[in-house]
């Protein structure tokens, strides 16, 4: 049977999306819905949030959950729900751009190391293992400490730290697939032609590793909000009054008994984002990993 006929390509984008939706596993459909809600809130939230993110005395301080303040108010009387809504795009932007940077760096390092092999590969892999062996939060704190106080609270630093934590892990996956792809004949053909390492990486390896890298990106992106939130919680993230979710949880952790909604609210937002990303990722990995084709020899 001729696989993937041209017929698939002629169909418009919408019917193909509809087909994709129908064939997606249920978990993935749920993940897509959760993610869509988060994206819409992140994109439009600042325009319809009931109060400003740093607007004090929006309600009685510590008034607890109510219709007016679904996630309650903090000690300064700020509306937590508004803060969470305002913070959505910050969390998403930090997590995604950090992961994207990590993906780019990891992919280049991993593909190169896997393709050239030899002692270069050995050295790079040992370095990567050393980085991976450090628990990621410790690694992140070390990087922030090294950067020095003048960088503290800078969103660029957060992005770089997320990239630093993820790049070695992504590089390992990229290397594994580069080692496999490098044995294929089309890479040999390029090598016989005399193509340089970067030309081979760009033309032969990268296009064939996109599946692996896409799954890896989605997987890492699923945990990046937790990392960003953890840094915020520990006080190494953005500076107050930025409504970053980890920071909100950190600010209100003392109020857990008095007004639990102030912690549970942003916690729920973070948790649902992570769950949504992971459901989506798992489905994506399953679809991209589905290679069994019956009837083909």
């Amino acid at each position, binding site marked *: *049977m*001729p*696989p*993937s*006929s*041209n*017929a*698939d390509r002629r169909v418009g984008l919408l019917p193909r999306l509809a*087909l994709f939706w*129908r064939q997606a596993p249920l978990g993935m459909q749920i993940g897509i819905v959760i993610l869509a809600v988060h994206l819409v809130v992140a994109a439009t939230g600042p325009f319809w949030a009931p109060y400003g993110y740093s607007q004090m005395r929006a309600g009685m301080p510590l008034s607890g959950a109510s219709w007016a303040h679904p996630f309650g108010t903090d000690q300064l009387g700020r509306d937590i729900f508004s803060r969470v809504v305002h913070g959505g795009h910050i969390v998403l932007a930090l997590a995604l751009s950090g992961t994207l940077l990590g993906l780019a760096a990891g992919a280049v390092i991993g593909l190169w190391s896997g393709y050239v092999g030899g002692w270069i590969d050995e050295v790079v892999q040992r370095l990567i293992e050393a980085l991976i062996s450090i628990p990621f939060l410790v690694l992140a704190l070390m990087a922030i400490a090294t950067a020095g106080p003048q960088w503290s609270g800078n969103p660029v630093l957060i992005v770089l730290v997320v990239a630093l934590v993820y790049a070695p892990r992504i590089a390992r996956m990229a290397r594994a697939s580069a080692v496999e792809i490098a044995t*294929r*004949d*089309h890479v*040999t*053909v390029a*090598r*016989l*032609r*005399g*193509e340089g390492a970067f030309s081979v990486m760009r*033309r*032969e390896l990268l*296009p*064939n590793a*996109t599946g692996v890298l896409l799954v890896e990106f989605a997987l890492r992106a699923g945990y990046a909000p937790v990392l960003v939130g953890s840094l915020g919680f520990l006080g190494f993230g953005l500076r107050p009054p930025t409504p970053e979710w980890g920071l909100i949880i950190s600010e209100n952790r003392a109020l857990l008994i008095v007004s639990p909604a102030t912690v549970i609210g942003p916690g729920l937002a973070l948790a649902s984002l992570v769950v949504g990303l992971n459901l989506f990722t798992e489905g994506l990995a399953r679809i991209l990993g589905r290679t069994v084709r*019956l*009837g083909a*020899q």
Partner: protein
Amino acid sequence: MTPTGAPDPALQVEGLSVSYRKGAGFVRVVDDVSFAVARGEVFGLVGESGCGKSTVALQILGYRSPLMRTDAGRVVFGGADVLALPRAALDRVRGAGIAFVPQNPTTALNPGIRVGAQIDEILAAHTEAAPAARMERVRALFDLVGLPATDAAAAKYPHQMSGGQQQRVCIAMALACDPAFVVLDEPTTGLDVTTQRQIVDLLGDLRARLGMSMLYVTHDLGLLSQIADRVGVMYAGRMVEVAPVADIFTAPAHPYTRGLIGSLPRLDPDTAAPAARPLRGLLRRQDLPEGCPFAPRCEHAEPACARDRQPLEPTGTPGRSVACRRWREIAPEIPSSEVIDPAHGAGRSGQLLVLEGVRIAYGTGRRRFEAVRAIDLAIAEGETLALVGESGSGKSTIARAIAGLVAPEAGRITLAGAPLAGDVADRTTDQRRRIQYVFQNPDASLNPRARILEAIARPAAFFFGRRPDASAVARALDDVRLDPGYAARFPDELSGGERQRVAIARALAAEPALLMCDEVLSALDVSVQASVLELLRRLRAERGIAMLFISHDLAVVRMLADRVMVLFRGEVVETGPREAVFAPPFHPYSRSLIEAVPVPLRRRAGGAAGPDRLRPDVAEAPRGPGCAYAGRCAVEIAGLCVGTPPPLRTAGPGHAIRCHHMLDDLSGARAHPPAGNTAQ
């Protein structure tokens, strides 16, 4: 031979239709196929890849999958419909009643379980026998399939066996519970010709002794003539012809069958069988007509052919039926004159490529394996040299050394007088350009994520600094007889033969002086093989490109090569002009290779012992200083061949044989022995 309408067939397939899921819908891949296999009969199912033959084979085992759907039909075995059996009953039938021998034993056997234990699993599942009795049975089965009946053999892991031995284990596994019916799906496709011959001999022998029925699925019509009683020819999911095997070759009725037979590369072009024209075109599933699926490729097609459905109808001859409304009218074709040697190579000048005393080894220390020992080889400009030998003979290693993928340990390689560095990275760009490599499997040698345009434009851009040019690519595609519209496609939108043409076009884009073709035809269907072979011959004649053609298929070699070099375990045992190598005197190994090629309708005696005494234990042992072929040679001289290197005897101009025997002794005209000769 048993006629179709046997009163009590072993197995009967009635109106079977199967669809595979594709996108949102289903695509019909088997369409209303019916046939019956009599008790003790071997029914061959033949067709090109994608014709649905393997799907039919799997349906006989009641294979079910969410990706496929059985639309209609019954498979009657033992009075019950296999397709309607509940799961538990199906489990009892499979293995015990109907057994299966898969195509690739390497993936079919579990690499982590000893082979004896794997056979034991089947016995444990289907019989009540005690473990000791089961082990007894395993040993008996080993004996039956020609493996040593010892516990040591049963305790081996699959990777410790050769491909042929693994396939024997799979056959033993299939026979474990004395099934009444065995389905064999391309059981010899991945094996060497000599091993293939042994397996086919074994199957013939088993069938004579056990009297079971078989369905033998293959793309190799020549092979079927060795084993099958009747043959069913499938095309695009339909059965187009069913006939006794002799009739298929002497009087094929359906135009597709004729084309298939015409496409077979033959070792003996002087044979009396009716030569037919090779198949044209390709199977395109997207534009199959309502009526005869072959109509778009058929030279006898009328408008009505494409319109009316043509069921399989008896021809009047016992056991024959054909699905063609015009089969009576189509006159037997004029035998096409076999043009073996186009007058190319005229004005041949100096040597293009010379290898002197090249030795290649892999690994070091105790794991060192010498793949090629002291090879001398020369290819003149415009000349085609064929390297022939079984897997492990070092033929691909030589090609890899010439390409610069593996550095020789000793010796030197020169291209047009200039020495070539061992590693491709150390060669000049021009040297790399002049040697181009076409790989066996176009699926792997084309980047699946690059369009055809990029694949073909890249060498020109790299070597000549030309900008990717659509019209140049279109010309390149036209040179290999592909539609220029393919430039925008991805490799997976092309068929295997088309992909191989793209790979050839890519190699030609570098304007090479030497084209290395490493088993380029072996992954392709026969009709596609014929057309790619024709393409290579034409390109060679037009451009005067020299070729190093590596193949295990002697029939193909005979059609293409100017000179032939026969390799065995890294040594040249015979070399010479094509006609000299294919005629006596033969080296004993060359003879066994030539005799192993299935020749249609020349069936061999049932005995499993050919002239090549394959003893894998010997074949894998480190060999002594003597003849490489000692230990497998049928005419080995005890005490001499193992210890003393054989002399190189000159048998004619440019024809040399490395053997202890005198040339006269090697001349015995046994190229196609009479039946009694091989039985010994």
